[in-house]
């Protein structure tokens, strides 16, 4: 992966981006148990696979979502951040690079 397609800026070198971790949903801290909360805070899906992740284009401060294969380091698609709220329906800004 040397080039990533930013939904705002188009294809850019990957050195312009920062990784923000996997996209995860928080349990409600008021109602969940201590065990559920510690699992959310600490545990991660460590196995390889296609994962939705947060990335940021540093130069423009633009956060967006990426579907990336963590075995081969291939970006399958990229999405504007709004797509995360709508459940990550693929939007036309997607692109692939190797």
């Amino acid at each position, binding site marked *: 992966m040397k080039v990533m397609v930013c939904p705002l800026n188009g294809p850019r070198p990957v050195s312009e981006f920062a990784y923000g971790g996997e996209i995860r949903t928080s349990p409600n801290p008021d109602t969940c148990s201590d*065990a559920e909360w510690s699992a959310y805070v600490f545990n*991660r899906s*460590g196995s*390889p696979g296609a994962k939705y992740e947060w990335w940021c284009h540093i130069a423009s401060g633009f956060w967006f979502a990426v579907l990336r294969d963590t*075995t081969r380091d291939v970006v399958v698609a990229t999405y504007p951040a709004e797509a995360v709220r709508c459940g990550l329906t693929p939007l036309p800004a997607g692109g692939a690079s190797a």
Partner: protein
Amino acid sequence: MPYRLLRFGLSRKHPEARMFTHHDSMRTSYDVVIIGAGGHGLAAAYYLARDHGIRNVAVLEKGYLGGGNTGRNTTIIRSNYLTSEGVKFYDESLRLWQDLAVDFDLNLFYSKRGHYTLAHTDSAMRTMRWRAEVNKHYGVRSEAVDAAFVKQGIPTIDMSCGGHAPILGALFHEPGAIARHDAVAWGYGRGADRRGVEIHQQTEVTGIRVQGGRVVGVDTSRGSIATPKVLCAVAGFTPRILDMVDLHTPIYVHPLQAMVSEPVKPWLDPIIVSGSLHVYVSQTARGELVMGASLDPYELHSTRPTLDFVEGLTSHMLDMFPFLSEVKVNRQWAGLADMTPDFAPIMGVTPVEGFFLDAGWGTWGFKATPVCGKTMSHTVATGRNHPLIEGFTFKRFADYRLTGEKGAASVGH
């Protein structure tokens, strides 16, 4: 003796003893199955057989012996950590290292060099003093030293580091050493093999059978085995094994790269680490400079190295040692580091009875090989965590009791 060598090569019978026994088939059951024939797994097998009399043990390896992070690290051994748990644990390891070659009857090229962790800022100097005090409290030989001491110990270093990161001082750790990493795996492997442990290479674990919350067997690419105890020592592959027993941990995997230069005349005796410049470097007995830097910046399960890494690391090497500009880089490689949020390992018993974990060794596992073998073999044999690993338990995250070793990571990650 070329004639003898030729005769040996052409002979169908090889009279010289092989390093390991070859086993055509696996037994149907073992008392203990160890997944991963790296340093940690083989050390545990060795101490299980030697100290606990448990010899019906299989070590399963999907690739070849010592081909994972044991063969990919930068071989630095030190115990100048920050937490009491860390200092005691690594210092026990350092003690074990010193007579290991005699134990194995094998030359490990263990070489005590002295270890400088350079400080380029006031806050780094403060951390060095803190680490030195914690170390001294536990009888570990470390001290905070000033710039003149550093210059005397490493006369060739550019004390201004190219003008932008002047060296103010360092944490000097006199027992810091390097050793030949392959020999460590071979020594433990041969020692275990001679005591009856079976090492099966090219044997991949495909599943772990659990009944009523207790391990009953292991499925492999070469058939199934019954066993009541499984020890997982697979570094970057840990999350895949944990999926088989439905356990969840904070472990996340990033590649860690390293590289080695062409051999040059011996000129660098001590081991040099700079957290600010993201460099650690030592010179091997062959004269190569072995260099490493920080983790790759995002999750990845591939060991393909990158040009970015070489560019970054060489530029920081030249800040410290400008005269190296003509020296070539020979090889680069990567390993998969299983990281934890508190930079401490995850060891010992797990909620699945009979499933033991030796993981979360991220970028700091090689130096701990002997003590991991000792403590994990005790834990597997007795079913209870060894006192030295109480700070590294599986359940510390659920209890919100992290160990906080980040201040002693060799470079800022």
